[in-house]
C-alpha cells in the first residue's frame, strides 16, 4: 500500500447541537481516486467540509502530508494544496467564467499551458470564457467548479457529487476528465452516489453511514464481492441507482 496523503483519525464534528461525525477514520492514499460512498445524510459532505476546515472537528485529528491541519483556517488549508469542489459547486454567478478562473489561481497569474489543457478537458470553459457564469447550464457550472480546482497544481482535490443531477452524456464527459486528472500527480477524494461511475474510476473506496466509516478497502474488492456489495449497497447505495 502506498503512503497516506490524508488521514482522519477519530474525527468528530458537531454542527450546532447535532453530533454529525462520530469518529471518522479514513485514509486517503497518495495518488489515484478514493471514493467515499454512503446514503444521503451519512455525513460525506460534512467529512469534506471538516477536512477543508469549513467546519471544525470537535475531536480527533486530520493529518495532511505529515502535518496536523485540524485547527488551521480554511485559506491556510487551501494554500497547502487542497482544493474543494462543493456539492453546490460554489460558482460565483455574478462573475464571468474568466473571473472565476482568475480568482481560483490564488498564487498569481494563470498558467497559460495549464489553462489550455483545462480547456481541452472542458471545452465549455473556452467557449464561454467571457460569459457570466450565472448563465451556464448545470453541467457547465460543474465543469467550471472542477476547472477552478485544478487551475493550479494541487496535491489533493475534494469533489462532492460532481454528477448529481447531470445528464448521462455530461456524466461521461466529467468521468473522462477525472480519469485524465488521475494521471497527473493529483490525488482525488470523490464523494459519489453513482456506483457505476464511482467504480469505473475509483481505486480505493470507503463507505460511510451514520457519521462513521463502515467499510474501507480496494475498489476492485468491492466490485468483485457481490455479497459485500449487497450488504453495503442494501444499506447505502441501491436507492440512488
Amino acid at each position, binding site marked *: 500500500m502506498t503512503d497516506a496523503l490524508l488521514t482522519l483519525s477519530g474525527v468528530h464534528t458537531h454542527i450546532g447541537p447535532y453530533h454529525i461525525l462520530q469518529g471518522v477514520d479514513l485514509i486517503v492514499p497518495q495518488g489515484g481516486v478514493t471514493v467515499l460512498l454512503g446514503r444521503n445524510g451519512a455525513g460525506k459532505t460534512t467529512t469534506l467540509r471538516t477536512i477543508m476546515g469549513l467546519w471544525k472537528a470537535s475531536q480527533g485529528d486530520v493529518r495532511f502530508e505529515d502535518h496536523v491541519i485540524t485547527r488551521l483556517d480554511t485559506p491556510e488549508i*487551501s494554500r497547502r494544496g487542497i482544493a474543494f469542489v462543493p456539492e*453546490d459547486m460554489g460558482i*460565483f454567478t455574478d462573475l464571468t467564467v474568466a473571473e472565476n478562473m482568475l*480568482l*481560483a489561481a*490564488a498564487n498569481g497569474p494563470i498558467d497559460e499551458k495549464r489553462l489550455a489543457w483545462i480547456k481541452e*478537458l472542458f471545452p465549455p470553459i473556452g467557449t464561454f470564457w467571457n460569459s457570466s457564469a450565472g*448563465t451556464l*447550464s448545470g*453541467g457547465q457550472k460543474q465543469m467550471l467548479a472542477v476547472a477552478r480546482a485544478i487551475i493550479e497544481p494541487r496535491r489533493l482535490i475534494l469533489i462532492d457529487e460532481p454528477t448529481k443531477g447531470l445528464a448521462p452524456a455530461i456524466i461521461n464527459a466529467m468521468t473522462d476528465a477525472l480519469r485524465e486528472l488521475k494521471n497527473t500527480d493529483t490525488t482525488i477524494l470523490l464523494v459519489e452516489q453513482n456506483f457505476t461511475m464511482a467504480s469505473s474510476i475509483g481505486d480505493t473506496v470507503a463507505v460511510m453511514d451514520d457519521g462513521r466509516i463502515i467499510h474501507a478497502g480496494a475498489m476492485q474488492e468491492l466490485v468483485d464481492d457481490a455479497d459485500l456489495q449487497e450488504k453495503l449497497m442494501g444499506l447505502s447505495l441501491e436507492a440512488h441507482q
Partner: protein
Amino acid sequence: MSDTTIKPRIEKIPLSEQFFQKLPVLLVPILAVAGLLAIGNPASWLTLTVAGLAMGMMIFIMASGLTVVFGLMDVINFGHGAFVAVGAFVGFTVLAWLAGWTASPSVMLNLTAVLIAILAAMLVTGLLGYAFERVIVMPVYGEHLKQILVTMGGLIVAQQMIYVVWGPDELHISRPEAFKGSLVIGEAAIEKYRLVAVGIGLALFLGMRHILKSTKVGLLVRAGVENGEMVEALGYRIRLLFLIVFMTGSALAGLGGVMWGLYQETITAHMGSEIMVLVFIVVIIGGLGSVEGCFIGAMLVGLLANYTAFLAPKVALISTIALMVAILMWRPQGLYPVVKAK
C-alpha cells in the same frame, strides 16, 4: 474529453426582459421628467434637479460603504453615522487651521485646503473603522441582533467623544471662497458647491465601479458577497478582506461627512445619525449590497426630496419613505437584488 457534444447555451434575453432589467436606471430620468412636468418652470426645475443630484451624490458617498459592508460581511452597522460625524468634525478642524487658505481668493489654495481636510477626515475615519471592526464588529459576526445593539453602542460612544473633543455646541463651517455663490445659467441659479458635489460623487461612483469590475480585490469583494466560504476555500483570507472593506467604507463615510458639513455649513455630533435615515433608505431601495442600486437609489431620493420640498413641503419628509415602500412593493429585494449562495 470524449466526443460528447455539449450544446452551447447562449441565452437570448427577450427585449421586454431587457427593458425590465434596465428599468431601474431609467427611473432617474423618468423622475426628472415627471418633476419637470409637475414644476413647470424650467429654471426652478434645473436648480432643484442639480440640488437633488448633489444631495443624492453625498448620500451615495455615505451609503456606498455601508451597502458593501452589508453585502460582503452581512453586518448591519448602525454605527456608520459615527464616521460621518467624525469626518465632518475633523474636516472642520483642518479647515479652521487653514482659514487663511480658505479665505484666500486663490482657487488653488481653496482646493488644496479642502483636499487636505478630506484626506485628514478619511484617514481618521479609516483608522477609526479599523478599531471599530476589530473591537466592536469582529466578536459579533453572524449575529444580527448583537450587531445592531453593539454598533448602536459604538455610535453613542463616538458621539460622546465628539462632545469631549469639540464641545456640545453645533459648529459653523464656511465654504472656501471658490465654492461660495452660484452660477447663473439663463434664469436658473446653481450653487457652485453642488456642482462640486456632483463631480466628486460621480468620480467616486465610476472609481468604485472600476475597482469592483476590474481589480482582483474588487472581484474578491463581489465573489465574497455571493459566497464567502468559497472565497476562503480558494485560499483567500476573507477576514482581511472584511477589514479592508470596512476601513474603506468608514473612510468614505468620513468623506461624505466633510462634504455634507460643507453643504449644510453647520455640523453637530448627531448629524451622522440624522442623515443615516436617508442612507438606510437608499441602501434598502438599491438592494442590500449593490453599489449600482445604491447609486440609483441615492439619485432618486435626492431628486424626490428636492422636488417635493418645492412642490409640497409638508409631504417632503414622507416622500422618500413612500418611495421606498413603492419600490419594495415592486421589487421586494430592492432595485438590484444581490445574489447570495444558500
